[in-house]
């Protein structure tokens, strides 16, 4: 299908879903109220690391309204939560996978770890009763920093992971890298911390679990980005329930950013308990619980080196990263700092040799897993920070050093396993340069200087691998799941269409974008198409939404199903028009005999399929309802350049983002307005990481110090400039939409662009290095240190 087959593709159609969201008519998990419903509350560990000597729940059980109190000891026969990706260490051993109990058994390992579940008639009663549970803790020393966790003598968190090591993994040709460094004209070295983040979706996690005794079946409403995966993991790996007896519904979901991909303890315990109490159970996290118990993001400590020849061409890169896993392995934790990180270290450049070694460490903190971008922002941050540094050290301008090293011949095999299918990095760099008015920067800088302010410009030319991805490749790399997507196009007798997709929309606008694809292909109004997602009882299967995969993979599955609808429609039309099937053309909603004016509308064909009076019943089934599964042959590679301009107040250290320009290549675009919205959101999160957000645990006690918005700084509207965004298009070569994905790009490119801008602004004061976030205090301290050193 050509992307511009009909007018609706590429149009900024207003979002179909917004009518319900803007009028408060969305149906979120916490809006679900079932008859005879009870409420759960989870008692969480107040300690980062402690042995549980004893738990006395007798007072809680006797408290008003309490139906049941469960601890780890009650969950006999319930397995631990699984990790979906096996990483194999350099020495050939599989990663250490300590048990991840649904409720703590014998030990708690982070502040917020699940100790007990109280089920009561009301939320307040459950919470009141939880305060009556007496837990006898033997508090142990804690370690919260991944580098510290790997040091000899660090507190041992799991018996199954000696030295707190999960794995040491590597990618790339170490010998080739060493050889390239040996002949380098210049080597740039950099130490970086990628700060830990708390996802903060606007809707806290929630679940409603119920059990139907008559059917011996369960229904779980849950805030999930991938309900089928949730069901598969929960039934097959943890609870041992028949998959067909569990229906998982992820209704409207208020943001995920990765944090709602995973199978969490709460909903698992609730499904298990719903049969025991034989009543529905509801739980909704308070914001404070989200802070301590949602899987966090990032948390890397990295040393990187870049070797250059005398002309500024990159010869090799060497990267060593220590990545925190948190206290337990969350669902996809292990693959984020490996498969989704090291593979992106080529960036947009022809660096011929790259070697990356990653050591993953357990820490006494909440688990760490994918957060918008997931590994790719971390990779981009390393590459783009060290490229800036190399440019500064060699005296080559920031745009020029990038241009000298851009990949220009496609397909391109990187030294870190990926095969880029297509891109045009000169084009996106030029687009961003124009948008950012780089030419006028010197004048703006001089004007700012008159006001005592420092201006800086920062570049980040990022690449990401999206549309996760061929199942066989992922399987070879350790994935324990497939990565295809499923779609079903159900044409109703009157010609309107319901699409069932395995993707899940929690803010991305799929209900509109996917409807545009269908409307465009079938030549019907967009209002005649509804998209159904997020219900294992209605959607055949699905891998869900993450990794900017929904359009490229989920959208393509729909296209494949549409192809089948059209193919069957042609057969029906050929019969009705008494023509050969090969002579039937389908365009603008009409099946036409080629070269004639004899045609049937799509609606006529649909009606015929369901009222098959004049129909080739001997050769063709009635009905028009087609299903397709699509497994991509490669990742997609969105790329672009972000340019950030900041103004620093040297008196206070305040960094103001005065301009932010993004020129992105997402391949073909279905709905430009939705894409722009996705870019804006991503930029806000990336700028949030670079300027404001920072998750801090106390190094001694392991307490979360940034456990509320009093201390965890989220970006607000007035922290952000009015973004300038534009796109360039090189269509993806291996999916019929030519689409690459746009959901994460903003968060991937922007942190490096912002930090490079701050360093550029501070360069005249002698500041050489700064870690995120560039908070006023940190910037001021860096200025003071530079002054002291001068």
């Amino acid at each position, binding site marked *: 299908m050509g992307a511009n087959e009909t007018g609706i593709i590429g149009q900024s159609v207003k979002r179909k879903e917004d009518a319900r969201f803007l009028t408060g008519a969305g149906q979120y998990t916490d809006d679900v109220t079932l008859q005879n419903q009870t409420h759960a509350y989870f008692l969480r560990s107040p300690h980062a690391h402690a042995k549980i000597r004893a738990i006395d729940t007798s007072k809680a059980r006797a408290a008003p309204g309490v139906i049941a109190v469960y601890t780890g000891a009650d969950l006999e026969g319930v397995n631990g939560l699984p990790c979906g990706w096996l990483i194999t260490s350099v020495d050939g051993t599989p990663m250490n996978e300590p048990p991840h109990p649904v409720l703590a058994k014998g030990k708690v390992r982070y502040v917020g770890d699940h100790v007990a579940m109280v089920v009561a008639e009301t939320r307040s009663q459950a919470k009141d009763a939880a305060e009556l549970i007496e837990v006898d803790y033997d508090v142990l020393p804690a370690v919260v920093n991944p580098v510290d966790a790997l040091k000899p003598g660090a507190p041992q968190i799991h018996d199954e992971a000696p030295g707190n090591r999960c794995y040491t993994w590597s990618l790339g040709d170490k010998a080739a890298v060493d050889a390239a460094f040996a002949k380098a004209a210049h080597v740039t070295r950099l130490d970086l911390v990628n700060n830990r983040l708390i996802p903060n979706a606007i809707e806290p996690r929630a679940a409603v679990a119920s059990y139907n005794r008559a059917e011996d079946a369960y229904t779980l409403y849950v805030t999930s980005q991938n309900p089928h995966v949730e069901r598969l993991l929960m039934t097959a790996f943890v609870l041992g329930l028949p998959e067909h007896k569990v229906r998982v519904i992820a209704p409207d979901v208020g943001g995920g950013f990765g944090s709602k991909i995973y199978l969490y303890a709460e909903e698992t315990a609730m499904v298990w308990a719903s049969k025991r109490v034989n009543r529905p159970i509801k739980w909704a996290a308070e914001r404070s619980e989200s802070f301590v118990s949602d899987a966090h993001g990032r948390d890397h400590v990295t040393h990187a080196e870049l070797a250059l020849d005398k002309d500024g061409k990159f010869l090799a890169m060497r990267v060593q990263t220590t990545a925190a896993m948190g206290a337990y392995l969350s669902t996809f934790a292990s693959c984020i700092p490996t498969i989704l990180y090291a593979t992106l270290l080529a960036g947009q450049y022809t660096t011929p040799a790259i070697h990356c070694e990653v050591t993953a460490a357990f820490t006494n903190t909440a688990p760490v897993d994918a957060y918008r971008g997931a590994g790719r922002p971390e990779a981009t941050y390393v590459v783009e920070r060290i490229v800036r540094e190399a440019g500064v050290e060699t005296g080559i301008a920031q745009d020029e050093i990038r241009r000298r090293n851009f990949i220009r011949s496609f397909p391109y095999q990187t030294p870190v396993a990926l095969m880029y299918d297509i891109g045009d990095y000169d084009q996106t760099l030029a687009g961003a340069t124009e948008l950012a008015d780089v030419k006028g920067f010197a004048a703006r800088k001089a004007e700012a200087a008159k006001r005592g302010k420092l201006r800086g410009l920062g570049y980040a030319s990022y690449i990401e691998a999206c549309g996760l991805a061929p199942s066989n490749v992922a399987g070879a790399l350790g994935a324990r799941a497939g990565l295809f997507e499923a779609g079903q196009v159900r044409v109703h007798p009157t010609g309107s269409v319901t699409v069932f997709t395995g993707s899940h929309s929690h803010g991305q606008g799929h209900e509109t974008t996917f409807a545009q694809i269908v409307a465009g292909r079938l030549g019907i109004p967009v209002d005649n198409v509804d998209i159904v997602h997020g219900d294992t009882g209605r959607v055949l299967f699905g891998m869900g939404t993450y990794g900017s995969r929904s359009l490229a993979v989920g959208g393509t599955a729909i296209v494949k199903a549409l192809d089948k609808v059209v193919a069957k429609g042609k057969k029906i039309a050929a019969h009705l028009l008494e023509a050969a099937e090969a002579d039937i053309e389908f365009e603008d909603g009409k099946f036409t005999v080629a070269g004639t004016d004899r045609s049937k509308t799509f609606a006529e064909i649909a009606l015929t399929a369901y009222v098959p009076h004049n129909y080739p019943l001997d050769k063709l089934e009635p009905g028009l309802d087609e299903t397709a599964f699509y497994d991509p042959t490669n990742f997609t590679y969105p790329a672009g350049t972000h340019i950030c301009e900041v103004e620093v107040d040297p008196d206070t250290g305040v960094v103001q983002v005065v301009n932010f320009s993004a020129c992105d290549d997402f391949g073909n675009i279905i709905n430009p307005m939705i894409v722009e919205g996705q870019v804006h959101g991503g930029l806000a999160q990336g700028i949030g990481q670079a300027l404001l957000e920072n998750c801090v645990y106390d190094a001694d006690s392991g307490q979360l110090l*940034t456990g509320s918005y009093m201390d965890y*700084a989220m970006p607000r509207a007035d922290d952000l400039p009015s973004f300038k965004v534009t796109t360039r298009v090189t269509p993806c070569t291996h999916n019929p939409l030519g689409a690459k994905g746009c959901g994460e790009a903003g968060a991937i490119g922007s942190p490096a662009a912002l930090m490079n801008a701050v360093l550029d602004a501070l360069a005249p004061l002698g500041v050489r290095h700064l870690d995120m976030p560039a908070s006023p205090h940190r910037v001021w301290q860096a200025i003071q240190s530079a002054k002291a050193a001068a």
Partner: protein
Amino acid sequence: MYEVEYQQARSVADAATLLAKTGGKALAGGQSLIAAMKLRLAQPGTLVDLSGIAELQGIRREGDAIVIGAMTRHADIASSAEVKRAVPALAALAEGIGDRQVRNMGTIGGSIANNDPAADWPAALVALGATVVTGKRRIVAGDFFKGMYETALADDEIITAVSFPVPKKAAYAKFPNPASRFALVGVFVAQLPDGSVRVAVTGAAPAVFRASGIEAALARSFTAEAARAVAVDASRLNADLHASAAYRAHLVSVMASRAVAACG
């Protein structure tokens, strides 16, 4: 939130009686207390709501002073023509408190009774030499704020109004905490009718305090440069995730100089 009894007081005397009888807490705008109760950090048995007491409302000019009723909301102070005319710095300060929701509910009396170390109002009261009026007595601001979350108020004593002498010049400069947007450092500078200069600092220490070094410098020369040149002693200042004591000390001078500049 734990279960709590709710009582609505009809007068200041009624409120004092209810507080003495129940041992409960007075509820003003609830912007700190209700949040603390929701987090189960505060557990009053009874809330005595002051919002229905007419005598606690309103802003009026009394001679050389602006008198603001204790239950006046921040938003009403921010938009008061009377305040803007007499002490524009007070209106500007009120406009910078919290967010719109907080300003529409929170009150000046509730804020000073709570005496959060990062609240804005204490700096204004101390710098302007305001008087806190209660159901029992009048307390000068310098004696009212005792320490972190501590005031001179007795348990059943209710603030009825705050009286601000109208200064010659005044301005408030706040450096917000990037997360909470409370004052990391807030400096209120006032030149009083007798020509004396007062500089009160919030956010930087366990409680509001007067920056005497800056006051002396400004008494000699009421200029931004004079304030900026004073090195503030960091030894008694707060240090936390967001700012070291040295950074706060530095910001006190910077914010003081900006406040002086804003005095015009």
